[in-house]
């Protein structure tokens, strides 16, 4: 019983991490139609900002709070300078963001060297439930993921900003005619997606430690999750991330990890092939 509970906790906490990483990716893909190959590097930047704050003597949580704002600001600038040119062509956008990601990744690699740098957990220790010990920080990640998810949902569905974003997604020309500044909305959406990635990076760096290829590890899983969930809505990618994250954490418990690893991708691609609209079809929230 205890081990089952521990396993379930492992699975849920990994699922939460994937959801957290995919949130930003999904928002950018759904609301802007861009598959952002640099998203993994935004995660990396978030982790790096946290590390920098920690290395300069600030408490870890200060870095974690700062990371989304810093990465969001970087995202806003990049959108205005570069990403903006790619909206017309999704494939070109992929290549362009890939190049951008390459620049960020290699710059960070140059800054940290080939090391694995550790950042301590701001909330250490474990929570004891009878005979089971679960990591307090992983539990915190689950809670924060739920909060962020709820916050994003409310932001997109209940606020006027969310309405504008959805209007821009639905019909850009009409949105412009109604006086919505679509370039500004695109910029804000992209910055928001980048900020979420920065937050994800900041939260997971104590678990995975900081290394240059941190972001890449999640990128392809993230894309697959977005496709499985369905591009076009907010809920779709989140649902996809939940499924992919849970599957990739759960399958290794019942079969050889190598087979499980590959099987998740094969299943996901087959699923997308036969249901291209994804788990949750439709546009909107």
């Amino acid at each position: 019983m205890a081990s089952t509970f521990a396993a379930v906790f492992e699975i849920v906490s990994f699922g939460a991490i994937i959801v957290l990483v995919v949130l930003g990716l999904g928002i950018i893909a759904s609301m802007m139609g861009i598959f952002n190959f640099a998203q993994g590097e935004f995660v990396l930047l978030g982790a790096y900002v946290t590390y920098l704050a920690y290395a300069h003597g600030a408490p870890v949580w200060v870095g974690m709070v700062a990371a989304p704002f810093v990465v969001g600001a970087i995202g806003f600038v990049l959108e205005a300078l570069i990403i903006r040119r790619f909206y017309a062509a999704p494939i070109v956008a992929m290549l362009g963001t890939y190049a951008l990601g390459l620049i960020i990744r290699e710059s960070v690699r140059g800054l940290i060297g080939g090391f694995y740098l550790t950042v301590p957990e701001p909330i250490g220790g474990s929570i004891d439930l009878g005979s089971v010990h679960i990591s307090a920080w992983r539990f915190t990640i689950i809670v924060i993921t739920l909060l962020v998810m709820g916050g994003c949902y409310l932001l997109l569905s209940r606020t006027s900003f969310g309405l504008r974003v959805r209007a821009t997604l639905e019909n850009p020309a009409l949105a412009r005619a109604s006086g919505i500044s679509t370039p500004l909305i695109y910029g804000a959406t992209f910055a928001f997606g980048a900020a979420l990635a920065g937050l994800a990076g900041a939260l997971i760096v104590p678990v995975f430690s900081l290394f240059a290829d941190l972001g890449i590890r999640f990128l392809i899983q993230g894309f697959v999750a977005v496709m499985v969930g369905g591009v076009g809505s907010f809920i779709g990618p989140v649902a996809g991330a939940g499924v992919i994250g849970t599957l990739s954490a759960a399958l290794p418990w019942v079969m050889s990890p190598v087979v499980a690893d590959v099987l998740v991708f094969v299943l996901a691609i087959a699923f997308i092939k036969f249901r291209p609209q994804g788990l949750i079809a439709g546009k909107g929230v």
Partner: protein
Amino acid sequence: MGGAREAVARIGEGPDVVTGEGAPAASAPAGRTSAGWKVLPIVEGLVLLIALVLPWVLQDYLTVFATRVVILALFALSFDLVWGYAGIMSFGQALFFGAAGYGVALMARDLNVTSILLILPAGTLIGLTASLLLGGFLLLGRYPSSVIFVSLGTLTGSYAADRLARGWYYLGGQNGIPSIPPLTLGSYEFEEGPVYYYMVLGILVVTYLLCRFLVRSQFGLALAGLRENEQRIAFFGYKAQHLKAIVFAIGGTIAGLAGSLYAFHEGFVWPNMLGVVFSTQVVLYVLFGGSGTLIGAVIGTVIIEGVSFWLSDNYRDVWPIILGVLLLLVIMFRPLGLISFVLGERERVGSFGKEPGKGPSKAAKKEAGNAAP
């Protein structure tokens, strides 16, 4: 649907008219072709000439490096055919390259087969089979697949293969398969150096000429149509998905050939060969050199690999950053690659069928096409 009607009017003029029209950039200046001579054959000839004399000029270890570049150029050619001509974004081209590499490495390790007469056909066959399977799955079906799905599907395939190779003990795990014996022909062994170089160069030239013939044939015309406007091609009665699957398989075949040559040249295979690293590298080569021209793929490979080799002593850490910046600049300001500095749009798109200069000029035909009701 004015566009479609226009196109129908144009296709009546003969096949050489429609491609020029299909390209969105057809209004671009005609380049330097107006003088009556063409740039493309000159560039191709120059590249071939340089490639032929290289081993005499270079030291031995540089010839070994040049051989690697030639093999990678063959690999780049396969991607260029798929992306530059048919517009299929294959982000997982390394899957076929690496699968063939692993396949022939296993043949050499477990079956002691090193004869070139068996290895190269086997590698080619592996590439063909893998690309037929993956391409058939991703591209064929009741509904046409979206561009995004195909690109992410190939990327995922390549990534999954990489992970599989890393975790599978039989394939050597992280370390791959080391110490592959040299290729043989009878009792002769192909060692690294000029002989291997010329063999690979010969294969590249033959493949290049085959591709050149292919993209200038009626099949190539249909491919160019696919790239520019898939729906229009479907309206003309072509089976767009089948065309895509065929060209994807051809690309995979060439990648397989390149992969088997690479495995025996390097003497080992490792998981990166299958994975995202090589897959994206080949995209960089082609984008940089100029997609949609075969020679652009070759030039891009030579420049990127050459500069990377040259810089690797002093600026190893900075080079990937420079590469990223250059790539971003090319994508933003020179989407047709470096080759577009010397090659005009009209020549890039090329002519199909009749030679230019015979019959009325293209511009005149364009006028006629536009005037037709």
